[in-house]
């Protein structure tokens, strides 16, 4: 995915000369069955799109042409054309899709089916299910290595990160982490996978090669009860130096130095911060704040919140256009 971004970046310098760092942000709103479209330059809502029921996981094709959206209560994945903002198709996700990840070549979606203890691999072009892989109880977090060869799924009640070979679709390793792992994120160089544990209150750093936990990161915010600190979304900067972790009902995002594993800062955002992502230029991080119905723009140079923008009810996931 990063390589794709690189190629696009080079192309862009060649023939694009539009002003001002404008990306388009797509936010899934779990409660009111919409996707809010926000422009990063103006930080204004551009449009609200009606989608299927209980939209959660959201991602964008590497060329930026299509949004893929888990409509959890409709048991389907919707495809939205970003040019027209119309739903142009669906993918067979299996029941209750929550989170998914797109393969680096853009051809396969790996979907966590929470209700069935399965990970489903879907070929996007043929819209066919290629494999159903049994994993632990309540699969949720999904990540794929930069080379596309390894997929990692976390299962919430089993408390494991399952390593899956994307050729054979077999589980090859299981790494125990803390309670209710919600999200998995590879470092851009593929050397580590970071896994958040919502109830355990930690982030486990797993070595990709040894397949074992090499570091457990803990959090503490003055004046907050430890049980309110519930790590969920993770975003790691493209240079691999900083990791941002959304801490759920603690209403803060932790900024972690990936070399020392020290938390260098806690950024106050909205209520129950769930997921987050960078703009392609890495200058801005955008968080979804489920209980305050807004998203927060964070300046990654200063790690200060810049602006909050009201979106729909209970914003859940965020996807940002690659250009």
């Amino acid at each position, binding site marked *: 995915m*990063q*390589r794709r*971004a*690189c190629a*696009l*970046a*080079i*192309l*862009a*310098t060649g023939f*694009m*000369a*539009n*002003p*001002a760092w*404008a*990306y388009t942000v797509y936010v899934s709103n779990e409660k009111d069955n919409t996707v809010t479209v926000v422009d990063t330059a103006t930080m204004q809502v551009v449009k609200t799109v009606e989608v299927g029921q209980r939209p959660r996981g959201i991602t964008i094709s590497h060329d930026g042409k299509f949004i893929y959206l888990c409509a959890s209560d409709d048991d389907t994945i919707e495809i939205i054309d970003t040019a027209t903002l119309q739903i142009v198709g669906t993918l067979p996700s299996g029941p*209750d899709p929550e989170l998914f990840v797109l393969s680096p070549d853009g051809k396969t979606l790996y979907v966590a089916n929470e*209700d069935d*203890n399965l990970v489903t691999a879907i070929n996007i072009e043929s819209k066919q299910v290629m494999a159903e892989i049994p994993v*632990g*109880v*309540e699969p949720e977090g999904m990540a794929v*290595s*930069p*080379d596309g*060869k*390894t997929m990692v799924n976390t*299962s*919430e*009640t*089993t*408390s*494991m990160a*399952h390593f899956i*070979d994307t050729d054979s679709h077999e*589980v*090859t*390793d*299981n790494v*125990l982490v803390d*309670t*209710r792992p919600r999200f998995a994120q590879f470092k*851009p*160089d*593929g*050397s580590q996978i970071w896994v958040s544990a919502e*109830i*355990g*209150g930690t982030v486990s750093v797993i070595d*990709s*090669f040894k*397949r074992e936990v090499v570091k457990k990161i803990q959090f503490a915010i003055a004046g907050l*009860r430890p*049980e309110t600190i519930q790590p969920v979304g993770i975003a790691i900067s*493209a*240079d691999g130096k900083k990791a941002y972790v959304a801490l759920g*009902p603690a209403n803060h995002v932790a900024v972690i130095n990936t070399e020392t594993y020290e938390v260098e800062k806690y950024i106050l955002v909205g209520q129950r911060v769930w997921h987050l992502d960078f703009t392609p*230029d890495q200058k801005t991080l955008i968080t979804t704040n489920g209980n305050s119905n807004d998203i927060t723009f964070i300046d990654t140079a200063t790690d200060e919140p810049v602006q909050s923008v009201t979106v729909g009810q209970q914003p859940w996931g965020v996807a940002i256009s690659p*250009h």
Partner: protein
Amino acid sequence: MTSAVPGTLAAFLCLFFQTANVTDVMAQEATDKQPVATDRPQKIAEIRIGYLRAYAPQLALSLLDLPPRDEGVAGANVAIGDNNTTGKFLSQKFSLDITEVKPDADAAQAFNELIAKGDRYVVADLSVRQLLSIADIARDKGVLVFNVGATDDSLREEDCRINIFHVAPTRSMLADALAQYLVVKKWPNWVLLYGSHERDHLYAAALRRAAARFGGQIVAEKEFKDTGTARRTDTGATQIQQQISVFTQDLPEHDVVLVADESEVFGTYVPYRTWTPRLVAGTAGLVASSWHPASEQWGGIQMQSRFLRTTGRRMLSKDMSAWTAVRAVGEASTRTNGDDPKKISDYIRSDDFSVAAFKGQKLTFRKWNHQLRQPILLGDTESVVSTSPQEGYLHQISELDTLGVDQPETKCVLK
């Protein structure tokens, strides 16, 4: 592309591109290598869990409240399934041995039979007397008992035992959860209507204690005598309507009617039939419990749909307690990676132990009396109204310890 990318960024990304390629090769080598675990088949560790329950058909005032035949057991079975899904990655297999005795029967014999089968963990849905009759055997044989039925505070206080862990909340936890909410809502004046059986008296006592603790005022109390009438008659509704109205006629001004009727003699009839229009809470109206069949917060919807799909009915509090008990054993087996009862038991007793049960935070056992700390749900027949502890009730160790008897007050000496 709607933005111009400066050359420096493109250059940076290209540098990154190269780095990514190098590690791709490394990742390939790593995945090509066969993982050690699959090289040799591991011996399957068998972990047997017993389920000992006192059962007799029960009556209820409402058909909706008749307990399903497999109440509790169904939760344990779903948890066995969950444990086995996890267990397949660790070569662990869990099974459940279910034994039923009559509510007044000797439980010790049935308990010994479970131990003879190899069960080192027993989920118990028994009376206080029955639980105490197996406590010493459990201690001597190194068996952990998980109480999922008895809410009696005495079992966590003067009659606490070293090998009994309590997953069911106590009456005092339930009453405190309710009282916190009523006080937060600024509905502090209560009348207390309680039944004439022992357990009704115990629940009434818990409500009185909660009132004193959280600033509620019980302005009047009344006992509803059980005169032995049948719970079901074809034309009873007209009489009940008048009966409850008259029963509540002479009460002083109040905000809330508290009902303590665990015995199902009159409580269900109180809402909507009182002399003055007042809210009802306790064992009727707004009810405090460890689970609610409509709770879907904190990932609960997954539990609810899994339970419904497996059992064909909705999940009740006892199902959740039994699920949590079996999961506690599963969690300890996962973390200790084996089937050694000593290690599993030590882990459950350790500071590291916690279990997740769709209540928004980790649940742990109180060290001083083995009671599971847990948020308490307040709900009516349709939905969850609130969850206690309420915001603002602070505690130096865990806010969950604002519910029930706290360490400084405990009479428990584990033995």
